[in-house]
């Protein structure tokens, strides 16, 4: 296949929109007609850059050193990955909990003028001297990109100097993309280029690549592994809490699937092209409908369609009476959802399991994949507001204040201050996924929404930073056509 090599920047895919205020019906019709135009916001709040995702995706790998070729601030968000790594070790029964080995080159004024090559070389040298790691990842930054440090060439040169390490440069310069998931792609492109190198390896029958981002709890990992083992297959859980050996196993797999819609979705296409590994790309396994869909997806790829139906029937028999109890508590509640691509759509499907009604959905990006989900949601819910936004709390509070939902699902910080009951489907430390996770999650949601005292009292005492006049304005007034 004569494909154009994918750059890793999600905006390079045609039809993608990152800034839009619309409704479920309108956006789906306009997408079909090809009428969605790329836009921008003349006023916006901070985004998540792709470097954050590139780093988080890999920072739990064993025997690795992570070098951020950047000023010191660009490793700020790595604390979230560091924390997940530490807590994840505790959950996995590790007693001597380790820090990830993270080195920042600390690009400074001198580097800006003379280049940062020496700092990068010295950092790699330190990494080797200190830990003699199997893998060294070198992350680009806005600063390293703009000053023109050629990290590929420097790493290639260092690779010949340190033959016992694999040195992997990753192009995750923040300014290249508005979609932070691009950072996942940048990491996987480099894994393929520098580690797997298109080399075919002997196949292992029944081995499935299960791609997991950093936000997946150990409880969720165990549930996914349980479900896949029921199909008679074995899981290669990557790259979260894995190792060079497990990464090298990727091409040996019989099939691939991912826990998150925007994690390794592009990479799984590459794996099919380069290593003949078929894959299933469906949804995040949160809620009955989505878990079934995710499960059937991977079962189909490995030819276990009949078996999966039997297991699903069994699981339904087990959990449906319990889900009904939760549904009785949540039926009819009007919900506003904000989340990343995977979790926002997963939450939207989940609330249908519980008979709740969607009134607003905030999700970071719109493309043909989102269209599939929106068409599904349009069949269930009356019209709902769609805000294509990477967070943008100012739009969110305007919408939530306007729509007055009974519940908000997402980062609770702002809706809580409006007194709206809040809950979340993201929990990297506790269960959310699969059939077992659903019960924990459902009970949490029902309990939290039934007891909104904290938010109500908080709202009486704390004010959001916005002027009263903002709540009267069109929430989408700052979205302008023809932007980046």
């Amino acid at each position: 296949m004569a494909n154009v090599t994918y750059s890793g920047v999600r905006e390079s895919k045609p039809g993608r929109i990152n800034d839009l205020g619309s409704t479920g019906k309108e956006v789906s019709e306009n997408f079909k007609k090809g009428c969605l135009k790329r836009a921008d916001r003349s006023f916006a709040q901070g985004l998540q850059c792709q470097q954050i995702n590139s780093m988080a995706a890999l920072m739990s790998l064993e025997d690795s050193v992570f070098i951020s070729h950047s000023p010191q601030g660009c490793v700020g968000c790595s604390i979230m990955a560091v924390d997940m790594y530490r807590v994840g070790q505790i959950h996995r029964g590790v007693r001597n909990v380790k820090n990830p080995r993270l080195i920042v080159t600390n690009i400074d004024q001198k580097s800006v003028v003379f280049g940062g090559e020496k700092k990068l070389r010295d950092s790699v040298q330190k990494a080797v001297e200190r830990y003699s790691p199997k893998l060294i990842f070198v992350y680009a930054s806005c600063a390293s990109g703009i000053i023109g440090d050629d990290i590929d060439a420097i790493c290639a040169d260092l690779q010949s100097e340190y033959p016992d390490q694999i040195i992997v440069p990753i192009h995750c310069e923040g300014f290249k993309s508005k979609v932070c998931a691009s950072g996942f792609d940048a990491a996987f492109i480099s894994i393929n280029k520098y580690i797997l190198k298109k080399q075919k390896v002997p196949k292992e029958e029944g081995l499935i690549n299960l791609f997991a981002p950093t936000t997946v709890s150990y409880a969720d990992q165990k549930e996914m592994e349980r479900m896949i083992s029921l199909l008679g297959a074995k899981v290669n859980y990557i790259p979260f809490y894995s190792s060079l050996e497990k990464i090298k196993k990727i091409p040996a797999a019989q099939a691939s699937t991912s826990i998150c819609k925007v994690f390794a979705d592009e990479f799984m296409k590459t794996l099919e092209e380069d290593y003949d590994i078929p894959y299933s790309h469906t949804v995040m396994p949160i809620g009955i409908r989505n878990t079934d869909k995710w499960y059937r997806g991977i079962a189909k790829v490995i030819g276990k369609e009949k078996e999966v139906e039997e297991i699903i029937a069994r699981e339904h028999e087990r959990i449906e009476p319990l889900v009904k109890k939760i549904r009785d508590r949540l039926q009819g509640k009007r919900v506003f959802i904000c989340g990343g691509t995977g979790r926002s759509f997963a939450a939207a499907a989940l609330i249908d399991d519980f008979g709740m009604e969607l009134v607003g959905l905030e999700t970071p990006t719109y493309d043909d994949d989102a269209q599939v989900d929106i068409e599904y949601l349009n069949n269930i819910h009356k019209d709902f507001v769609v805000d294509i936004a990477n967070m943008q709390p100012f739009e969110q509070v305007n919408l939530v204040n306007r729509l007055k939902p009974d519940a908000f699902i997402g980062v609770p910080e702002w809706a809580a201050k409006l007194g709206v009951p809040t809950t979340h489907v993201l929990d990297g430390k506790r269960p959310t996924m699969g059939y077992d996770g659903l019960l924990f999650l459902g009970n949490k949601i029902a309990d939290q929404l039934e007891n909104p005292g904290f938010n109500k009292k908080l709202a009486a005492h704390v004010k959001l930073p916005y002027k009263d006049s903002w709540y009267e304005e069109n929430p989408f007034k700052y979205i302008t056509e023809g932007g980046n």
Partner: protein
Amino acid sequence: MSQIMENPKGGCVLAGINSVLGAIDKVCPIYHSGPGCCMQTTAADQGQSGHKSSCFVSSVSLPSSNMLEKEVVFGGLNKLRTTIQGAVDIIDADAYFVLTGCTAGIIGDDIVSVTTEFQEKGVPVYPIETPGFAGDSNLGYETVWNTFIDQVIEKDVPKDDKLVNIFGIVPYHDPFWSGALEEIDRILSRLGLKVNTFFTKGQGIETIRKCSGAALNIIINPWLFKGPSEKFEEKFGVPSIRIPGLFVGATDTTKFVRSVAEALKLDPKLVESVIESEEHYVYNYLAQSIGVLSWKRFAVVADANNAVGFTRYLANDYSFTPVLVIVSEPIFRPEDKERIIKQIEDLEYARPPKVLFLTDQFEINKAIREEEEEITLLIGSSNEREIAIEKDIQFILGAFPMSERLIFNRTYAGYRGSLTFTEDIYDNN
């Protein structure tokens, strides 16, 4: 100037600026920067400081020009202009500060030209032209105060001989900053003083504008704030005293009270009565738990301020044995290092510990791992937990960065904080 660093404690100068501004009521930073800087810098300082972050705007609620390829190539001033306008239109702040990310700094966007347009319309928008790559978050604290001295604080404010300004306790870079400032405020208020902490009691930009009316600047830090304090005195005529380390416990807190009293010539009778009642309060509790804590040979890894405070309290007031103290923030001036060493080594009875200045986590771990003398208690940051587990040492999470505990108003500083510190060290094992 910045060094290669493993597991750095804190972020870039932008992270420091954001943390300080975020601790002031109704002040809105506006980022002229790349798309991730708001999140990264908030996570770097506020996000590692006991899970408390600015309630007004922080992380993804900070206005940002989110500079992408187009702005890198063509400049981002138009984007900055509409971003400021939007912020002014919708965010109910008393002042706005435009921060410069690496991208804006490297391509050389002239942010002052844009902030001037707004100032001419009477909007309080101030430029801070210090890009992220200029240094670490400590520099951010000084950068903000230099900006205030140059652009915000008013001249010719009537003097108030009971008003004092507190400097040197860096919001979020010290996870206990709120509680420490509240304890300092409590003690000084008992002396009849009015206290500008700037970051508690809902103090805002108006307090800062009028702080030149103070009788005294009190710097509670062994090294920070040298430049700004000199500039402050030169421009507004307010003298400074430096308390060369955060005071923990009765001995050093009383010393602090006497220093302030002497500088302001406070009524000795009042001062002595306050000291007496505060010390009585502390010792009344200590007397109820004598011998309850087992004896420790301790090491400290912390910023200079807390390293001084923890070491001196445990050695002078609690008769533990200091072994090793690692000051884990980048300090460059030799005179500052000497002042810090003096505070740590000049103990009443205890033998002085070994003092090291290390910022790199590998080197910190190595120093603790290879220490020949036995250590039975380590007070450090979340980063030091690993080596504490490895060496099987009792570990107290008492320094930045701090991920495994939630901190609102807890402090180890002052009279009362020392009791909390002692409570936390108790171990029934």
